[in-house]
């Protein structure tokens, strides 16, 4: 994958849940302002890998990591590295939309408030900017105080993206962001991803290979915890170098 302009790098990354290895010797680079997709069968380690990028795996018991993960060249697991700060810079959107049971406005304002912003005018600005970036503003601007739970699934997911954007991250991790959405809502999220890459690094985990092909610039194929092949999305889907990748992409697996 692209060597210059990378924002995240891993080197010989290994991860175990207890005695079970989940990642083996993963070495990769993630370029900034591009969309990188991770594909592979269930349990191959792709979600585990992106959870390393913002230290979400710290919250899992018996999880052990060796190797290096760098964000802007700094080891994020180094002593003195602050996981809260890393999670602000590396935001995450999950498979199922998970808005807080609060108003639309409060969902977006929550993060900035936690980070100490209390100025109402500034919060208003942040909420509008984030909702606009998440392509949701036009649909909700007249009901910002309404409960987020009343939004459709697709709108809720865009709200979660807006919530992530509100704290001005540099990287957005998306773990199967469309798997609970209908095709129209999915298309909106995909369009949004394409816009987000102008300003952010986006890493998306997906089971849907057509989606990976549609939205990403780079694709990594993982299998049994290993990064089998990384390359431009065109190369991976047109002529992968590894037979394993070829077999997975063409559905000749197992």
């Amino acid at each position, binding site marked *: 994958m692209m060597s210059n302009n990378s924002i995240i790098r891993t080197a010989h990354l290994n991860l175990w849940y207890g005695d079970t290895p989940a990642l083996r010797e993963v070495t990769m680079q993630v370029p900034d302002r591009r969309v990188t997709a991770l594909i592979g069968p269930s349990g191959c380690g792709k979600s585990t890998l992106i959870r390393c990028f913002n230290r979400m795996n710290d919250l899992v018991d018996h999880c052990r990591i060796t190797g290096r993960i760098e964000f802007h060249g700094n080891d994020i697991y180094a002593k003195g590295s602050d996981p809260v700060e890393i999670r602000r810079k590396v935001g995450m959107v999950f498979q199922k939309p998970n808005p807080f049971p609060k108003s639309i406005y409060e969902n977006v304002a929550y993060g900035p408030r936690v980070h100490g912003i209390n100025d109402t005018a500034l919060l208003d600005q942040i909420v509008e900017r984030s909702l606009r970036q998440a392509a949701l503003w036009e649909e909700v601007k007249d009901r910002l105080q309404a409960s987020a739970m009343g939004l459709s699934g697709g709108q809720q997911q865009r709200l979660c993206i807006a919530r992530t954007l509100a704290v001005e991250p540099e990287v957005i991790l998306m773990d199967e962001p469309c798997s609970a959405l209908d095709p129209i809502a999915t298309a909106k999220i995909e369009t949004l991803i394409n816009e987000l890459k102008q300003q952010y690094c986006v890493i998306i985990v997906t089971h849907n290979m057509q989606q990976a092909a549609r939205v990403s610039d780079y694709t990594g194929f993982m299998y049994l915890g290993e990064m089998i092949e990384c390359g431009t999305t065109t190369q991976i889907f047109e002529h992968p170098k590894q037979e394993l990748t070829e077999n997975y992409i063409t*559905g000749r697996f197992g």
Partner: protein
Amino acid sequence: MSDKFHAELAETKEKVLGLGYLAVGMLEDALRALEENDPVRAEAVKARKRDLSNRTNALEEEMYRLIALYQPMAKDMRMIACSLLLISSAERIGRYGKDIASVVLRTYDDDPGATQRYTDLVRGLSIPHMGSIVIGMINDSLKAYETEDLSLVAHHSDRDDAVDALWHTIFREGITYMMEDTRTITRCTNYLMVVRYLERCGDHACKIAEKVTYLVTGEQNEIR
């Protein structure tokens, strides 16, 4: 992707190959009809043209359907891309066969003794020799598609150079014949058309070889 898709793709490949052999068969038979001044054989080639078009169109439709329903990727996608081009080249080759059959019918003469004279002229113009090189190239391209053995098409570029050289040589030879005996102008002009068709068929063999190479390696390399 499902096994159902791969079964359908394998079936499509068989049909594509069948179309390829139908086309090369038309070319081969037309050349034989030309050499033997045989209108019956020529008519039989012409009669296969409808089948050739129908099968080409049906296969094209079938592959669009596979793309629409299964969105194939990687080698599956390359197989369909290669097959789509192959059927279009095969159809052209078959139609050149039909065109050569038309030349046979247009220039047919039932005068006893004519056949020997025409056979001599066809042979004098090296048409059977050129035909066997071109048909060999097409057969090897089809065999490579079937087996994915690229060594079969490794020398297509050189073989095509030989075909191009023959086209230029025969062209000059034909003109010499016509200058020597103006009564041969109509016949020789028709025969030079045949030589031109063969040269085009050699290019189609190369085109197929290019796409089979893409199918196997994922690389696009022009054979010239």
